């Protein structure tokens, strides 16, 4: 049964998806853009743990894949791993920095998987992609994550399983 917090996160996911598809292109710098769904996913997985986190990651990634023209399953895989990692890392850092550090690690892993598979068998330099896209995108995502954590309480310690 979905509780109020779950419904709230479903709304966040929906809004993030809508913004990602419509408004993010207006705030992108060169080709660098934040991943709003990843921010919500990390916040969600931190509260719900790895199982629900990776399931949410898979579903969100699948929706993104369907809405894009890229490989079906690629974002689902990246987001699954990100959701799993975020859920597994809860409680590993101080509560104050937990969200942003987790976002950094999950974002890095997400992009590494994504670009690694995306460039397999092609002449793209994986290292260049990491420098040119992963780091700027991740930085941008973390900046937006800071804003998100300012408005949304991402440290719901009472729901945590200790």
């Amino acid at each position, binding site marked *: 049964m979905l509780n109020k917090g779950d419904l709230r996160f479903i709304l966040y996911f929906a809004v993030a998806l809508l913004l990602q598809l419509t408004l993010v292109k207006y705030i992108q710098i060169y080709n660098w853009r934040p991943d709003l769904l990843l921010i919500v996913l990390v916040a969600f997985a931190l509260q719900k743990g790895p199982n629900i986190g990776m399931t949410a990651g898979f579903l969100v990634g699948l929706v993104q894949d369907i809405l894009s023209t890229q490989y079906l*399953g690629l974002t689902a895989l990246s987001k699954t791993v990100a959701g799993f990692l975020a859920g597994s890392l809860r409680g590993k850092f101080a509560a104050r920095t937990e969200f942003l550090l987790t976002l950094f690690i999950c974002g890095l892993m997400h992009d590494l998987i994504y670009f690694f598979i995306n460039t397999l068998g092609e002449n793209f330099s994986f290292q260049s992609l990491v420098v040119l896209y992963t780091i700027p995108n991740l930085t941008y995502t973390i900046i937006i994550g800071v804003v998100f954590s300012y408005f949304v309480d991402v440290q719901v310690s009472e729901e945590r399983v200790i």
Partner: protein
Amino acid sequence: MKSLFGLFNQRRTLFLLLFYILLSFILMTLNDPFNIRGMRILVLQTMSVVKNIEDKFTYWNNLEQENSDLRRQLLEVSIENQRMQESMLENIRLRRLLKFKEEHKIDAVAANVIGFGQEQTIRSLVLDVGEKEGIAKNMVVVTEKGLVGKILDAEPEQSHAQILMDRNALVSVRLQKSRETGVIGWSGNLWLDLNYIPKDINVEVGELVITSGLSQIYPEGIKVGLVGEVEENKYELFKKIKVKPAVEFNKLEEVFVLTSSDSLMGEGKIAQ
């Protein structure tokens, strides 16, 4: 079997992760089968509705700016159009002048009217030619339509021309049909006054008035105007004749200054 479920429960997270990873890879290998394509089309169509709403919003948001830009562009195009029309009209005028000059083989200097004289008592034009172009006092100023006046004084780079519509301008003229001569001048009306034509001379409205050649300044045969009104008073010796000037003095932009009056003398070529 029981131990297998136990293992799954113990390693549930790991199995779930492997399941999703495996499922993702399977999806990647099955990339874009028919049913997925259909779903993509469906979702993309739904998104296109959202995109249309977004486009409409952006359109309305940009409408004001776009309207302002279009108004500015319209103004620029309008000004450009006016300039082009002006250039076209100037071109027509200059062609006429050139044709006039070639047809009449006159020694003349083309001049632009750059202003009107500031004197209170003399109505004059300021021309952009002067002594450097060979302009001198009393040279005759004409257009292809007829007589304009004469040069009053010439400076190195510009000159002043007295027009016929000046109180001090008097020109000896001839009625083309009757060959009767008179003196034309201006008394402050819209038209010129032709004086000293005896009452017994038959003058028709529309008759051409040309310079007589009796003057030392104006050569013979330059069109001055057309007879507009003819009045007679039994107590006066001469007819009262109003002449409509051939030249519209307020619209003058380009004129010719005849540098040699000999070229027109006796030919009457301008009076056509």
